[in-house]
C-alpha cells in the first residue's frame, strides 16, 4: 500500500487540529504561540505533499514552504516581543488576566 497524498493530508489535518486545540484552551500566551507553530507546520506538510504528488514539474510548493517558515519565524519573533512587553507592563503572561481593555 503506497503512501499516497491522502495520508499526508489526514496527518496534517490532525496536527492542525492539535494546534487549534492548543490555541483555544491554553492560558499562557507562549503556549498559544506554540499552537500557532504547530498549525503552520501542518500547512507546510500539505504544501510539500502537494508539490510532490500533484505538481512536481516546478518546485513552487517547496519555495512556498520556505517562505512560510520565514514568516513563521518573523511571527514568532514579533509575537514573543508582545509577550515580553505584556509581561513587563502587566506582570502576567496569562491571556485571560490581560483584560484592561474591558471596562
Amino acid at each position, binding site marked *: 500500500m503506497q503512501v499516497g497524498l491522502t495520508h499526508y493530508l489526514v496527518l496534517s*489535518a490532525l496536527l*492542525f487540529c492539535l494546534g*487549534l486545540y492548543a490555541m483555544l484552551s491554553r492560558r499562557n500566551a507562549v503556549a498559544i504561540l506554540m499552537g500557532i507553530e504547530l498549525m503552520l507546520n501542518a500547512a507546510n506538510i500539505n504544501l*510539500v505533499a502537494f508539490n510532490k504528488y500533484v505538481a512536481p514539474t516546478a518546485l513552487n510548493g517547496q519555495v512556498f514552504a520556505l517562505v512560510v*517558515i520565514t514568516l513563521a*519565524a518573523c511571527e514568532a519573533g514579533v509575537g514573543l*516581543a508582545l509577550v515580553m512587553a505584556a509581561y513587563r507592563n502587566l506582570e502576567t503572561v496569562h491571556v485571560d488576566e490581560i483584560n484592561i481593555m474591558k471596562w
Partner: protein
Amino acid sequence: MGELAVFIILSAITLVSAVVVVTSGNIVRSALSLVPTFLGVTGFYILLQAEFVAGIQVLIYAGAITVLILFVIMLTEGGTGLRVRQINEQVPMSILASAALALLLISVFIRAPWPTAKEALPQYTASGIGEALLTNLVLVFEVTSLVLLVALMGAIIIARRER
C-alpha cells in the same frame, strides 16, 4: 512497504509529541517536546523528497524558534509560574470544536479525488529551489527581505524599554 512503516513511525512521533505540547501542564516540558514534533515533520519532508526544506526546518524551527520560545519562557516565568493552572475553562468546548474540524477535514480529504501527476520530483531539490527563487520568483525573494527587516524593527521597538 518500508515507506508505509516509516510513515507510521514518524506520524506516531510527531502526533504523540504534539499531544504533549498541547496538553502538558509544565510549560517548559511542552516547549521542549516541540523539538521531536519538528524532527518528525523533518522526516516527512524527507519522505516527500524535500531535502533542503528538511535541513532548513531543523536549522530554523528546532534550532532557532524553539530556543527563542525557551528564552521567553525562562525570562517571563522561570521558576515562579510553573505551578499555575495552564488551561482555561474553555477546554470541553475547544475539544469539541477541534475534533469537529478534524472530522470534517478528514472526511473531505478521504473522499476528494486528488489529481496525481505522472512526472517525478528531482531527487535533490536544493539547486532547484535556488534557481526557482532567483529566476521566476524574484519578487518573493526581495519582498521577504523587506518583511524580515520590518519584523526585526517592529520586534525591537516593542520589546525594548524606551530609554
